């Protein structure tokens, strides 16, 4: 085996995506087209953006449960400010992003300085953000602002006749920037080091506090951005948007081959993890007779397989070390 062991999970993820896509293409007519592939990106743009932020959190050895609620809060704040207060989108969107980043950094600071588990702090953040949605309004706020509808309806035609939405392009840019950040910047290395061992990073003199807070800030920013994209997608703000979304995101990251103990994984894997979730949904909608709950069961099954795979691989790794 010339393949480096650390690449096995990500190779499995990519192979699985290809196999599922090919299987779908053979089974259903009209499945094998560039447009279906593009639709995967269009329909899962917000999932991709959130999952990218989550990848950094998980790589650093933490977890962020607040992402789904943050998305809902972003849609709610955008909708309320644009629709009910008549603010221009140019002001609202940066404001929402800033809010997400501030929210994330607040959670990061509590996690770091008071040494409370990320699970509990982000759980509180999740309740808080979801509750704040209802403080704004209990009902759906529909957006008919010209800027939002224009962005939502814009289709960028690609050579070959297929099209892609602005949201998908934003998601692709986010993923590309994240891959660069994770592997070619000092911050990225710090995140991996922190996930490997916090104690060692501290002893090595790495900026643990800054990195940790930055990671949660980044995740907050990403989920706020995902919220903005979600607003384009749904054209409404609602407190029940993206309920349970944090689990989809974590599942995408795990299926992408990232170890939940931190320190191991690739943002590219997350990208394919998101696409695999998209393919499952597409296959189920093509099948027609299957109900939506099969998505959950299949994703649960995939989670199980990937966790087992990681377990086997890491067990082999540790036995080698001995």
């Amino acid at each position, binding site marked *: 085996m010339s393949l480096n062991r650390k690449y096995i999970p990500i190779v499995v993820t990519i192979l699985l995506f290809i196999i599922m896509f090919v299987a779908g293409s053979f089974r259903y007519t009209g499945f094998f087209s560039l447009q279906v592939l593009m639709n995967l990106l269009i329909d899962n743009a917000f999932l991709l953006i959130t999952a990218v932020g989550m990848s950094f959190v998980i790589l650093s050895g933490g*977890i962020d449960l607040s992402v789904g609620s943050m998305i809902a809060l972003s849609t709610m704040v955008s909708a309320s400010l644009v629709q009910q207060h008549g603010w221009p989108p140019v002001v609202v969107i940066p404001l929402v992003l800033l809010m997400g980043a501030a929210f994330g950094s607040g959670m990061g600071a*509590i996690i770091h*300085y*008071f*040494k*409370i*588990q990320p*699970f*509990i*702090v982000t*759980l*509180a*953040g*999740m*309740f*808080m953000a*979801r*509750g*704040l*949605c*209802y*403080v704004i309004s*209990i009902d759906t706020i529909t957006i008919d602002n010209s800027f939002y509808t224009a962005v939502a309806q814009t289709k960028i035609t690609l050579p070959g006749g297929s099209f892609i939405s602005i949201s998908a392009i934003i998601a692709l840019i986010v993923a590309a920037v994240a891959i660069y950040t994770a592997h070619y910047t000092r911050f990225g290395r710090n995140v991996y080091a922190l996930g490997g061992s*916090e*104690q060692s990073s501290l002893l090595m003199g790495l900026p643990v506090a800054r990195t940790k807070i930055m990671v949660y800030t980044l995740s907050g920013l990403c989920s706020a951005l995902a919220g903005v994209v979600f607003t384009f997608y749904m054209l409404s703000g609602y*407190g029940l948007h993206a309920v349970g979304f944090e*689990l989809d995101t*974590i*599942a995408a990251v*795990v299926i992408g081959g990232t170890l*939940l*103990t931190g320190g191991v994984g690739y943002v590219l894997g997350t990208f394919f993890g998101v696409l695999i979730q998209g393919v499952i949904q597409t296959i189920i909608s093509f099948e027609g007779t299957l*109900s*939506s*709950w*099969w*998505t*959950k*069961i299949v*994703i*649960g*099954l995939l*989670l*199980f397989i990937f*966790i*087992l795979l990681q*377990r086997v691989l890491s*067990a082999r790794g540790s036995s080698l070390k001995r």
Partner: protein
Amino acid sequence: MGKIYKHHLFWPLSVLAALLLFNLFYSPDFFSITMHDGHLYGSLIDILNFGAPLILVAIGMTLVVATKGIDLSVGSIVAISGAIACLTISKGADQNVMGLILTSVLIAVGLSLFLGAWNGLLVSVGGIQPIIATLILMVAGRGIAQLVTGGQIITVTSAKYAYLGSGSLATLPFSIFVVAAVLVIALLLTRKTALGLFIESVGCNPSASLMSGIRANGVILSVYVFCGLCAGIAGLLLSSNVSSADGNNAGLWYELDAILAVVIGGTSLNGGRFYLTGTVIGALIIQTLTTTIYMIGVPPEITLVVKAFVVLAVCLIQSDSFWAVFASRWKTRHYPGEKEGIHHVS
């Protein structure tokens, strides 16, 4: 006496007392208990009755948390258990036959035991992080519950099944007795046998426990099975209270409320010492909070914001670093050695 605030029940009890005191001033009706047709009615009874499933789930969760684990799948198990019981009953010709009710309850309980064992095996033998191992069942379990109910709400018209969650025994809701029974069994098992010590030991250090002759895997497996059982019974209570099973929403967010109750009760998520009575009080706090918010007419959705602050406050109170920050601020004298000590606590 000066150390009373150090007692593990001090903070949970004071929060509960503060909530009740608020209600006493805000709505004096809160404490009135009336008698109708041999049943007791009142807000306090409601809190106990509606809080029963949460208390059950939280009791199971406490033991899991004590082993440094966490069980995210309880909400899904609640849904599956209720769904399978209602499905079995709805298939029967006469829904009031005692045999049918017993069969359905047994199937539901058996299935929850199996699901708990699945979690336990993944964590103990599989050696997978508890959050992840139970995440599988949390995601897939919700799907399974929806599969069982066909995505719809299964309604049953069985008076005998409804008794479980809404009937009353000796003027009190029957569910209270179920909770009390489970609590007493759990307390006896953990405090009167060595099992409690084993659980705490495994939570503190699994490998050291193994070295000292405790079968860590067996202990971990059994707490997850117990947690599954508690969630299963909670699912039965919940579904029988409304005589229907909803695969989509039953038990949704129960895992979070249960973890919250455990943490409020003083059990640390880092494993080790656990407090079953604290957990029960924690669950009662959550339920009282919900009832209070309903009663004072604030939109019930605001509960979430209040809960967020309660979680944060409780965690900060329990955090050593939080107190260290204040301690170092209030102190006038500093010793060089002390400073290092604070920084090395992790």
